[in-house]
Every structure is written in C-alpha cells, then in structure tokens.
C-alpha cells in the first residue's frame, strides 16, 4: 500500500478531517472530493461546508442554507459516462450540510440559554443587539457548534469539515474561547458588583483605584450604558459554563487521535503564507496534519518549443491569414504559462520546507470550475493516485 496517496489512508480511517487554508484555494472542492471518495468506498460521510460556490452547492442539492443535512444521491453519478470505473462499496452515503453564513449569535444563545425567558431577555438587551449584528467569529462558532452536534450523533463514519476562510488565525478553533473570554467571570463579577441588588453581597467599597476607574468608565461609557451592561452580564452569567463545556468538548474532538487536519493551498504567495501559518499553529497546538494539498497548479513541460514546427502546417491549413498571428500568440502564451509554472514551483518548495515531514499532493488547475459530482470524481486521479 506504499504507493497509496496519504489521503487514501486518512479517508479510510479517520472520523474527522478538517480542511484549512485561505479563501479561494479550492478547500470546499477538496473536502467534497475526499468525502465522495470515501462514500464510494462504503463509508457514511458528511461534508460540513460554509458558503460554497453557488454552482457546486446547487449540483450537490444544497439549494437552501439553513443547516440541514442533505443526502446526495450517488446514483446520478453511477449512471453517468463520467462515473466511477468500479462498483461502489455498498453502504456508502454522501451527505452535505451547508452552514448558514449569516448564522448569528442568536443561534448560539438560543442553544445555550437555560430557558426561554433568559433567552428573550438577552435578545431584548440593547447591548446584546449591538453585539449580535457584528460579533466576529459567530460563523466560526456555529461551525464548531454544528460539528459538536453531528459528531456526537453517530450518524456518520467520517465528517469532512470545510472551514471558513480565515486569514490570520485558527479562528474557528478560537471562536468559542473568545466568546467565553468575553464573558470572563472575573470581568463580569467586577462590573456586576456596583449594581448588585442582593444585600447579601453588599456594595463594593468604592475606594482608591477602583473608584477612579469606575468613575472614568462612567465618564467614558455613560452611566446608562454601564447599567445596561451590568444587566447584560447578569443574563449571561449562567450561560458561561455551558459555553465553556462545549468549547472544551470541541477542543477534545480536534485533538482526538482519529482527527486529522489537511492544509489546502494554492501555489501563490498569499495562500502559501496562510498555509504555512496554519502549519505552524497546528504544530504549536500539537494537532496532527496528515497532508498538504496544493491545488490550481499550472504546468509547462516544454522549454522554448518550436511553435512553427509543431503547429505551423496545421494552422496554415486551417486559416492561412491568421496563422502567423496565432502561432506568435501561442508562443507568448506558453512562455507566460512557463514563467507562472516556475514561479509556482518556488512557492511549493517554500511551503514544503515549512513541514518537510507532511506529504504533499499536487492537483492541476482544472480547465473549468469544478461544479458537479463528475468534476469532484475527476479530481481523484490527483488526490488519490495509484
């Protein structure tokens, strides 16, 4: 089995594959293609994705967002001339779920609130309303929430998580922690005290630094705002434990021995930059990276090809007048392609140097956008060679 792609083993054995990388590098396509491969080999697989290209989403039957799990009928593919050249293993299922990219903090709160009254009180709070609209990371938070749900459901042998495109950090890993930090107990306690109504706690003695700091906060934010914030924190107090628990559970899933990260990149500076950052971060967290997939590769094999010798006669036969122009264009286009391919090779070499022990898989740029099951299947010759 030594000739097998590193993905072969992963797709056969893992419970969770997490595809990370910058936007526009073919993360969704890679995730869906790997999931399809495993499904055709008898596993029940779910692709969890955010905001895929519309045509790919449509062809997968993901016409509606709303966090629904949708089964993708593989029969369509099997009847197709472009279908797999082998009999799929029985029992395999391909499912997809598209996370609502507009999912908001409301969903999170709805999940962790202990009762409807608390939830509604939070929803009505002016401060909450202003956060809910702009809270960054709620999309990432929802991704981990959904993962937690489906992972625990036992319905799937494997989940392939296509992460949202984030640039500077493993935001989707951080999001739950950040939300929890926002509700940091200490901060809450400190701000709750002055307005605590229960006499048992008494009022904080407003002396020294605290008094100055508090007066200044009142000055900066206004007393009204502080009062409202205190109510907000009171409402959130009970939510904190629930959120931390889920955060820890998701962290455990990411660190599980049957979870593997796949870093996806394109051979250009910004994506390699992001990919190398991911490699470094994942290493720092001792999370396992099983493969690096480099998509959208251009290739040019010929060096200074003799255009006229190769195509001159044919071109002149077809269009004698246009032939010289087109032949010149072909030569120029090939030089440009060759330069690009050489440049991409430099970026690939650089990326490989960041993680010499991680196997790398190269996928050529497809002539058109990959937008259906046949397209996903056609990627297998690169992703799973041999």
């Amino acid at each position, binding site marked *: 089995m030594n000739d097998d792609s590193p993905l072969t083993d992963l797709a056969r054995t893992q419970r969770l594959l997490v595809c990370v990388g*910058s*936007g*526009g590098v073919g993360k969704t396509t890679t995730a869906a293609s790997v999931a399809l491969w495993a499904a055709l080999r008898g596993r029940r697989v779910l692709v969890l994705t955010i905001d895929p*290209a*519309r045509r790919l989403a449509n062809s997968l039957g993901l016409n509606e967002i709303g966090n629904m799990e949708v089964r993708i009928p593989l029969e369509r593919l099997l009847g197709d001339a472009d279908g797999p050249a082998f009999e799929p293993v029985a029992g395999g299922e391909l499912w997809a779920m598209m996370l609502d990219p507009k999912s908001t903090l409301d969903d999170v709160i709805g999940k962790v609130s202990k009762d409807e009254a608390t939830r509604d009180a939070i929803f009505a709070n*002016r*401060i909450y309303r*202003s*956060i809910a609209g*702009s*809270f*960054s990371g709620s999309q990432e938070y929802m991704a981990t929430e959904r993962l937690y749900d489906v992972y625990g459901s036992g319905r799937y042998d494997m989940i392939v998580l296509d992460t949202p495109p984030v*640039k*500077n*950090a493993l935001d989707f890993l951080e999001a739950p922690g950040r939300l929890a*930090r926002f509700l*940091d107990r200490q*901060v809450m306690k*400190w*701000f709750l005290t002055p307005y605590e109504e229960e006499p048992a706690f008494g009022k904080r003695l407003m002396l020294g*630094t605290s008094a*100055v*700091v508090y007066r*200044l906060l009142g*000055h*900066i*934010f*206004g007393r*009204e*705002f502080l009062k409202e*914030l205190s109510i907000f924190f009171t409402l959130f107090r009970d939510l904190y434990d629930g959120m931390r628990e889920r955060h820890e559970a998701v962290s455990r899933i990411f660190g599980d021995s049957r979870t593997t990260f796949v870093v996806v990149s394109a051979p*250009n500076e*910004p*994506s390699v930059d*992001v990919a190398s*950052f991911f490699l470094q971060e994942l290493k720092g967290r001792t999370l396992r990276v099983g493969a690096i997939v480099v998509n959208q590769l*251009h290739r*040019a094999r*010929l060096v200074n*090809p003799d*255009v006229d010798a*190769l*195509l001159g006669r*044919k*071109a002149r036969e*077809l*269009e004698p007048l*246009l032939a010289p*122009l*087109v032949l010149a*264009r*072909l030569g120029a*286009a*090939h030089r440009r*392609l060759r*330069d690009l391919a*050489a*440049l991409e090779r*430099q970026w690939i070499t650089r990326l490989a140097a960041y993680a010499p022990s991680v196997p790398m898989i190269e996928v050529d740029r497809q*002539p058109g956008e990959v937008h259906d099951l046949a397209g996903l299947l056609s990627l297998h010759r690169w992703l799973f060679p041999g």
Partner: protein
Amino acid sequence: MPPAAADAPADSSVLFRSRVLFLTGKGGTGKTTLGAAIGRLAAAQGRRTLVCELDAQRSSLTAIFGKAPVYQPSQVAPGLSICNIEWMPALDDWLADIVGAGRIVRMIMKNRMISIFLEATPGARDLMLLHRVVKLSQQFDLVIVDMPASGNAVGMLSVVGTSRRLFDTGPIRRCAEEIDGMFARPDTNLVLVALPEEMVVNETLETRARVHAEIPALRQPLVLLNRATPATLSAGERSLLDQLGAQELGVDARELVEAGRWEERLETATAEALSRLRAIAAVVVLPVLARGEGAARVVGQLTAALARQSHAKVDLVGEASG
C-alpha cells in the same frame, strides 16, 4: 440619507485626490501590495503619504518596505511613511485625548479590567483604531488604510453606526461622530481590490452592497481589478485556436494549444469580471505583471501601471527599479 456626493461615481482620480483611502478586498487579491503602490505613487507626486495597517499581527508591509511598521509612523522613502495602528497604544492615545495624559491614564492602563472590558465592549477596539486614522489624516496629505479582508472590514467600518446607536452621549459617542465625519468627507474613499475570478467578483459585489447599506456616509467605492488579462484575441484568432484544439495533436503541440486556450480563458474571465463590476462601480484595470521578483519590485511595476492608468505625470524611473 447619504449626501448627494455619495452618488457621484468614483474614478481612478480619487486615488490621487483623496486624503483617506480605505483599501479592502477578498484575501489574496493583492490589496496590501496595491496600497503600497498607491502610496509610492502619491509620494512621488509630492504628497506626504502614510500607509497604515490596523493592528496587524503579522505585517505584510515589512516585506515590501524592508522595515516593520510600528505604532508611530516611520519614513521608508521620501514623503512616504508606514505604521501599524496597534490597539493598546491607540486606546492609550484616545484616553489621553479625553481625560488628559498623565497619571490617571497610566493608572487606567495598568488596570487589567479596563482593557479587558474595553476589548470586550462591542466595537471599542475598532473605534479606537479608526479614531487614530482620523488623527493621522490631520498629519498627512494621504493616509492609505490597509483594511482586513472585506467581510471583516465592513464589520469594522459599520461599528461606527452601531456605536452611535448605542451611546447617546459621552466620549465614545463623540469618537464615533468624528469617525463618521471622516467617512462623510468627499476626500475619503473606499477602494475594493478584485481579481478576474468568479468568487472574488461575487464577494466584491456583496461588499459593495453591504457598505452601501451599513455605512451610508461612505461614497461609492472604486474597484481595482488586479491581475487582469485584457482581451486582445480577435474572434478569428479564437476560432482558429478552437479549431486547433479540436485536432489530433501530439503531446507537445497539445501543450502549446492548451497554453493558448489558458490565456483565452483568462481573457474571458477578465471580460466577465469587468462587465459585472462596471455595473456597480468605476473600475481601474491593472494587468498581470511578471511576478516573483520580490515584493518591492512588484510594487514598483504596479506603481508604473497605476501611473499609466491615472495619466499621472510622475518620474517613476527611480521608483520602479527600486
């Protein structure tokens, strides 16, 4: 209602008569490189120019200018400075602004609760960063702000409106009003950097719609279409290419024809991107450049391309070869 000026279409000249330019775009579109190129061009025109990043954890400007930006602007070329507006010193400056510098500010800064609180308070961080841009725009002729990728950038810019709704009075309210005032100035402009790729164009259109809805004070953005392949193939040439593609060919001949078809697809993608983008904004087209010769060199080439686009009369000989 946005002021009437907001409806006036932007053109490439906004790059050179603005005081503040906010640059954003989908990740990987080259906005940092373009921001640096605009900065060099403006500086070459004799304008005191600042290129700044907002609380960047890893500065992209370092590779371009060979010097890491810090909080205080530092000069990297005649008339050109760079900086990274970090959140803590920006907060420090703002607090000094409203309560006066000195002992009290230092005491506040030492209090962990305050910084956690402010960091957790919706939008406070973004407000402080943008407020620093207001201050810097009073010290420079042009401030080019390298924003985060488009989704986050809109969230950041719209914080101003959110804060105005949340704070009826007080220093934060005033801070938000000052920033809004900057947005509304006719010489403040938003620049969206796009690529001739379907997904990037989609995101550019979405960003434009969100900006229009959430930050009405900002004028219609200018779009820079980066790495474009302008159409040069005639219909006859395309047809010959197709006919060649349909022939029985050897491996080598096939590779040549495929190279031609690859370029043809790039031309088509550029034309499609242009027609979609022009429906919503003025577009400046920047051609594909020879890449991989170092960030500073790419900026030099882009600067020259921009100068041609804007018909700016500047001596770029020294610049482009730097």
